[in-house]
């Protein structure tokens, strides 16, 4: 393993965002509380996020490590972090999530009387934590990332501290979240113990002082003990440890049955925080989820017990999320349940990374298709879901009070046709109706699920998404077909409007314009979607990216853009 800080720029994104958070905090110290100064914080944050985005793209794209390659090409901090393309893509998504959230916050917080500099810093810290989860290659680092993410979110959800609901949201989130973190920690401890015990007895390439919670170590231990009398995969302690990890990460991703906090927390937290939470926390959790699952995959014995568990979780999440969303009258609760349903779809994609009944090349193929699909879906989900929350802020009253009941939006199309159209785009996209991007996201997810042998689950996903269509259409029905009850002439607009418009444009275009970064060929690290030979060489090739992102990685990124098939 490469022990050097030389190529640390591969991890630039979380570092930049973390430092940015501190800078924002410091700048806020001497700032008089004028609006202009807060706005400067927003601009600085946006600029920094843009920088992080570019750095992640430049550095990460050069590296051809797959989340499924157990031995990463460029790793740092004793192998505990890995600067790879997978992490880079997640970081880019997270930069977008943070930027959109910040954009929609400013005026909203001002009107609510909450505009304090800490808010921006906390969002940035939280983003950095989520990014860290995506780059983490050690369960301990996953935990640290999760805590950075969560602690900031606990504070943020109670940020409207004069509102009872916000307080309730924060307390509920904190208590349950702390409990879930405990699960994750305990799971890590069990895995540590199980791996350490199993390695005592076998011949292995793992070094003596290697971290026992490192993904590489775990993968090696699984491989090396597979043929012994006491394989790690069937060790009860290991199985229990992984189960606890699923609980801990499932909580952050709001997977049924660990979802019960989500509607209350989402409803109570300030809307801009809810928006960030619904995508940012999920992205981090799913990144870690995907990494852990990829480590287990090569060992049939290790994934076997979890396939059916994850199958059940994905099915339950899709059903519960969609069914409960139908009855909601509060738009934030409805979006909370809808985000639970979407977590189910993403989980389906995670599950699909482990193909049933495929071997060798086909399996790798199916896996990279599924990984691309999950990433693409998160990308698309970011825009449509944050867009929907941005609409709630955009349309709120001048004093920052949102219209929370779905019925409040009746007749919106007559008074604000543009706003209604934008909202309709998000709803149609969330519902998965073409040509919005949500359709393509679902198409790729279900395609990869069927590809990997989860046809039943894909059909279930399609059927539950019909239920989804019903409640998303309900908003359109309300906006377009019902007579007005509220006056929408004075809306908040501002940054939320900009955020919503950006998100709407992305939602419309992402489906129609292919995004090379999320194609399976790209996540395989190939320049063109034909050759599969790079896979074999990727382990031995000299690292190109981390050294000098300015000159060597950028051409590599250019190479990676797929050439249209002749």
């Amino acid at each position: 393993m490469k022990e050097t800080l030389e190529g640390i720029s591969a991890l630039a994104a979380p570092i930049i965002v973390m430092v940015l958070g501190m800078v924002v905090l410091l700048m806020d110290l001497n700032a008089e509380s004028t609006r202009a100064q807060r706005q400067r914080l927003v601009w600085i944050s946006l600029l920094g996020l843009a920088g992080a985005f570019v750095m992640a793209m430049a550095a990460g794209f050069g590296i051809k490590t797959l989340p499924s390659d157990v031995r990463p090409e460029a790793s740092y901090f004793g192998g505990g972090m890995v600067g790879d393309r997978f992490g880079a893509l997640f970081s880019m998504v997270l930069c977008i999530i943070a930027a959109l959230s910040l954009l929609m916050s400013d005026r909203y917080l001002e009107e609510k009387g909450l505009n304090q500099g800490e808010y921006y810093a906390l969002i940035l810290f939280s983003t950095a934590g989520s990014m860290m989860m995506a780059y983490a290659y050690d369960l301990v680092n996953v935990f640290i990332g999760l805590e950075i993410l969560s602690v900031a979110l606990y504070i943020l959800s109670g940020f409207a501290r004069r509102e009872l609901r916000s307080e309730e949201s924060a307390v509920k989130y904190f208590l349950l979240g702390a409990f879930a973190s405990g699960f994750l920690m305990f799971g890590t401890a069990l895995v540590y113990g199980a791996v350490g015990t199993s390695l005592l007895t076998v011949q292995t390439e793992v070094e003596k002082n290697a971290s026992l919670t490192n993904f590489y170590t775990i993968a090696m231990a699984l491989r090396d003990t597979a043929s012994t009398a006491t394989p790690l995969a069937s060790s009860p302690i290991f199985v229990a440890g992984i189960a606890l990890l699923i609980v801990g990460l499932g909580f952050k991703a709001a997977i049924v049955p660990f979802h019960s906090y989500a509607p209350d927390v989402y409803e109570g937290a300030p809307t801009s925080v809810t928006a960030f939470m619904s995508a940012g926390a999920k992205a981090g959790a799913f990144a870690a989820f995907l990494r852990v699952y990829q480590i287990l995959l090569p060992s049939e014995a290790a994934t076997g017990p979890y396939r059916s568990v994850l199958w059940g979780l994905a099915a339950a999440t899709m059903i519960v999320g969609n069914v409960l969303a139908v009855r909601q009258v509060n738009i934030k609760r409805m979006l909370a349940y809808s985000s639970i349903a979407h977590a189910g779809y993403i989980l389906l994609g995670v599950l699909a990374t482990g193909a049933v009944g495929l071997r060798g090349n086909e399996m790798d193929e199916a896996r990279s298709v599924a990984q691309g699909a999950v990433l693409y879906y998160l990308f698309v989900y970011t825009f449509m879901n944050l867009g929907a929350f941005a609409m709630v802020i955009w349309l709120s009253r001048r004093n920052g009070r949102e219209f929370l009941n779905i019925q409040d939006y009746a007749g919106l199309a007559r008074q604000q046709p543009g706003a209604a159209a934008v909202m309709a785009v998000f709803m149609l996209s969330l519902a998965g109706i073409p040509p919005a991007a949500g359709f393509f996201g679902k198409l790729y997810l279900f395609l990869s699920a069927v590809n990997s042998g989860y046809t039943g689950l894909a059909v279930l996903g399609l059927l539950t998404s019909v239920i989804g269509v019903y409640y998303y259409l309900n908003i359109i029905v309300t906006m377009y077909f019902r007579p007005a009850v509220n006056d929408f002439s004075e809306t908040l607009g501002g940054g939320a409007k900009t955020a919503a418009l950006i998100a709407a444009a992305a939602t419309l275009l992402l489906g129609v314009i292919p995004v090379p970064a999320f194609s399976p060929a790209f996540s395989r690290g190939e320049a063109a979607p034909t050759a599969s030979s790079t896979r074999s060489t990727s382990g031995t090739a000299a690292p190109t990216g981390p050294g000098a992102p300015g000159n060597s990685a950028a051409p590599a990124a250019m190479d990676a853009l797929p050439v249209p098939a002749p």
Partner: protein
Amino acid sequence: MQSILTILLVLPVLGAILIAALPKNSAKWGALFTAILTFVASLALLGYTPVALGTDAATLEQAAGQFRQFEQKIPWLSDFGISFHLGVDGPAMLLIVMTTFLQIFAVMASFDAIKDRVKEYYVLLTLLETAMIGSFCALDLILFYIFFELVLIPMYFLIGIWGGKRRIYAAVKFFLYTLVGSLLMLVAIIALYLNVRGILGTSEGTFDYLTIKSVLADNPLPLRTSLLMFGAFSLAFAIKVPMFPFHTWLPDAHTEAPTAGSIILAGVLLKLGTYGFLRFAIPLFPEAARLSAPFIITLAVIGIVYGALIAAMQRDVKRLVAYSSVSHLGFVMLGLFAFTPQGMSGAVLQMINHGISTGALFLLVGMIYERRHTRAIKDFGGLWEQMPLFSRIFLIVTFSSIALPLTNGFVGEFLILLGAFQTYPWAVVFATTGVIWSAIYMLWMFQRVFYGTVDKPENRALRDMTRFELATAVPFVLMIFWLGIYPTSFTRYMDSSLDLILRDATGKETVRYVTYQRDGLSRARAERAATADEPRVETPPIPASTGPGPRPAFGGELPPPPGVSPLPEGDAVSPADGAAGASAEPAPVAPPPGPPADVPQPRVPGL
């Protein structure tokens, strides 16, 4: 003109942008301008030359050749083998022209009716045209699916915003009902993709229709798989048609939709279902289609009779017309699944006929609704004297709907019944009663609305048609007679395509071979016999007195349908022929394929 299909897709989108930019009062003119422009552009499609069906072996080449003329293929989402692939064959081309034709009148019918949120209305109506045209010319399964779904969105808004009293219920029901079916189709499309990729043995699959079709023709799927997929496709299309048990969304949607919505709904959207069968469900899964045919025919016949009976009992004119659509579309399904040339031609012709006559009926009902704001039959009576012009045009359209000879309805229904009789005689026995029923419900309605004395005081003030309304109605009347008297100018475009579909579907040589020569403009007959029971390629020689080559038109065992004028030998230049080219030189008749001993024996006359 190679890119005409793309142009047709783009024109309405540009039109919609134009409408959005226009002031409110001129939005309708913008929409009309766009519709007429698109229609004129679509006339370029009439340059389509039916591809000759020649020899026995090269079927797939020809299948692709069907689509070559206006084909466009641009790689799109190439990671998944999705391309922007457009192309038409005969039936698709005719349906596109019908769509652009109806669009003009849908816009004109909205001129007085729509006073609220005018700009949004015309933008949606214009965008709908793009989606419809796209559905008819997409040759990529995902692209088709996208257009197929895209149709729902504008229609949903048209019904939901500008509809009648129960519009919300109707709009949501319409949307969800159709979506359930098409999502299952999406699963089947994905499964098809993976299966074809498995067959090809490559890591890159394809959603391309022509590729998938040719792969499946060489490597048939296991019967169980193909039956499942056929089922999923069929369910999606059966809901759209709608076939008998899935029809309940139709009366609600039709009744609540604004006039233009009804015209488009009946004229084009229902055809998406039957077109889906013709283009996707049957050619992709021929064996499954053959096996399911008796079942589908049964449902179609139930639909014919049931739709007619329910229509007879309706009190609302628009609902009556809606139920009559269930009956008429039952005929189309009967014709398609009879798997005979006449049945297929009749079915496609009936698709166009139904678009014209039902479109006209909704248009006329819309006119009277604008005057009285009621559609209940009992609110009228004695309009014959009151609105002479309107009544007479309504009568013609009624006749067309009843399928009186010399009107378009007759040709379609007769061909369907003729075709279906050869394979499912008993189904035809029952289906024919539908013709009688349609006379009963239409004429009974006509009698109650138009005859008698004007006994309601409100009806005394009714104005006759305005000149503008007349202008919208007359083209329909012309089309009714044109299709009724000289259907050949339409069938000539589609027969060869249908023969090919039929050959794929039945795995047998088609009975009718009609060869069109590109430059000769002549319609030469190189009919080849074809035994309906022998598998193709190994057609055993049939001793017969008739030699190969042209033969007299009336040589078959069954008389040609009246109203269908068989063409004389050699060449016949129909009025529409002028579009195709200039040279009138009769081209040599393609020699009949097969071994010399294979002497054709005509069974059934062609059209």
